[in-house]
């Protein structure tokens, strides 16, 4: 005999029956419009170099609160970077600037001898060999730059592994060097939002443009020293080091490396898979969403599943607050 008694949370048998039925999770669909543009995915060394110069004097740095704190670090970094940089820059003798395309022009006037690009690898190797410097720097940034400029890119498609990994710690540096993309995918691309702002037409572009095309500079052969002078006399204007490296990461290194390894479509496919199983890839969701946005010029939006037929209430069950005693 069943008798209901008030005051407990024991479930009625019918409720237990329903509770035993596994719930069905509706599928998540992603709507993505593919608008892949060549310039958004294939960076070139001149572009990186130009971006570096452009980024140094961005007025956006004026509002960066951490600028002063990183200036010392950036100073050291600048020396390390600019020294080989100056030897590798060729400034064309005949300026071909157009007033409406200053930024593109600055790219045209800077080229890096591709055969000598490995020099950058040694530059970042030197940085990595300085413990005090690494303590302040984002060592992962240097490692990635080293990986990029030295041309040692992991040769297998490891997207799925990358997207699941935890960020590496300092003790994992060796492992990171072997597969640097692990770090990249998990730690650094999450701050992708500055990319667009970096190319949104800051007036300061005129400064570096004028600086580079002035005839006295072009024919003086003092490009390296001049740049160095500007770096040290305008430290307050510098974009913080981490911000700059994040930019490089986002725009150039990550995408180039990933695409070289597996191809653009593979990357997008991997990202879509990642987004489709959010429970397994929660930590990577922000990054993958952003990088997919960059690759496709569209924002992937989770779309609710479209109901088939109609939707309705079902399985309405009363949860009894009665103890069911069997006598």
């Amino acid at each position, binding site marked *: 005999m069943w008798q209901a008694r008030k005051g407990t949370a024991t479930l009625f048998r019918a409720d237990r029956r329903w509770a035993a039925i596994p719930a069905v999770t509706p599928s998540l669909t992603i709507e993505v419009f593919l608008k892949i543009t060549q310039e958004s995915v294939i960076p070139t060394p001149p572009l990186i170099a130009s971006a570096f110069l452009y980024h140094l004097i961005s007025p956006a740095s004026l509002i960066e609160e951490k600028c002063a704190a990183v200036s010392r670090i950036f100073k050291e970094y600048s020396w390390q970077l600019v020294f080989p940089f100056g030897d590798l820059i060729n400034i064309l003798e005949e300026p071909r600037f157009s007033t409406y395309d200053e930024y593109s022009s600055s790219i045209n006037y800077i080229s890096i001898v591709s055969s000598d690009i490995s020099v950058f690898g040694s530059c970042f190797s030197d940085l990595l060999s300085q413990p005090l410097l690494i303590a302040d720097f984002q060592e992962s940034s240097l490692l990635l730059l080293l990986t990029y400029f030295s041309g040692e890119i992991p040769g297998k498609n490891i997207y799925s592994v990358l997207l699941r990994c935890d960020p590496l710690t300092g003790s994992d540096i060796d492992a990171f060097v072997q597969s640097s993309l692990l770090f990249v995918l998990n730690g650094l691309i999450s701050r992708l939002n500055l990319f667009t702002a970096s190319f949104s037409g800051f007036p300061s572009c005129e400064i570096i443009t004028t600086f580079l095309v002035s005839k006295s500079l072009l024919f003086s052969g003092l490009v390296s020293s001049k740049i160095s002078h500007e770096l040290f006399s305008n430290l307050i204007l510098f974009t913080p080091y981490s911000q700059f490296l994040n930019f490089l990461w986002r725009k150039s290194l990550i995408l180039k490396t990933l695409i070289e390894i597996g191809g653009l479509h593979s990357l997008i496919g991997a990202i879509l898979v990642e987004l489709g199983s959010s429970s397994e890839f929660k930590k990577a969701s922000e990054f993958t969403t952003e990088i997919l946005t960059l690759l496709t010029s569209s924002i992937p939006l989770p779309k609710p599943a479209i109901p088939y037929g*109609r939707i309705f209430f079902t399985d309405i069950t009363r*949860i009894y607050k009665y103890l069911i005693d069997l006598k």
Partner: protein
Amino acid sequence: MPSYYLFSDETLVLRFQIKDENNSIYLPSEANVNLSYQSDCGVGEFSEDKENKYVYFYFKPNASVPEVGYLSLHLNGTVQMGEREVSFRDVEKIYLLFKS
């Protein structure tokens, strides 16, 4: 049309699911589905069990209740299918028989 006996000082707890004809389960917060209710004898609120895909409804009768009251659950959903906006709705009315 279900009906439940209820003490006037008792909280009624209902559990249900929202499905389509393909037996897929939906949660209001994830599927652009709005839930509401009407009643002449009390107030209630909805709660979701996201893990198990259940919706709970907690209903508290008024201090003074009729011998027979009602509770109706309303479901309204809108889904964009291409350029077409499709609306879904359902109503479930429940009679409450109060015991003294």
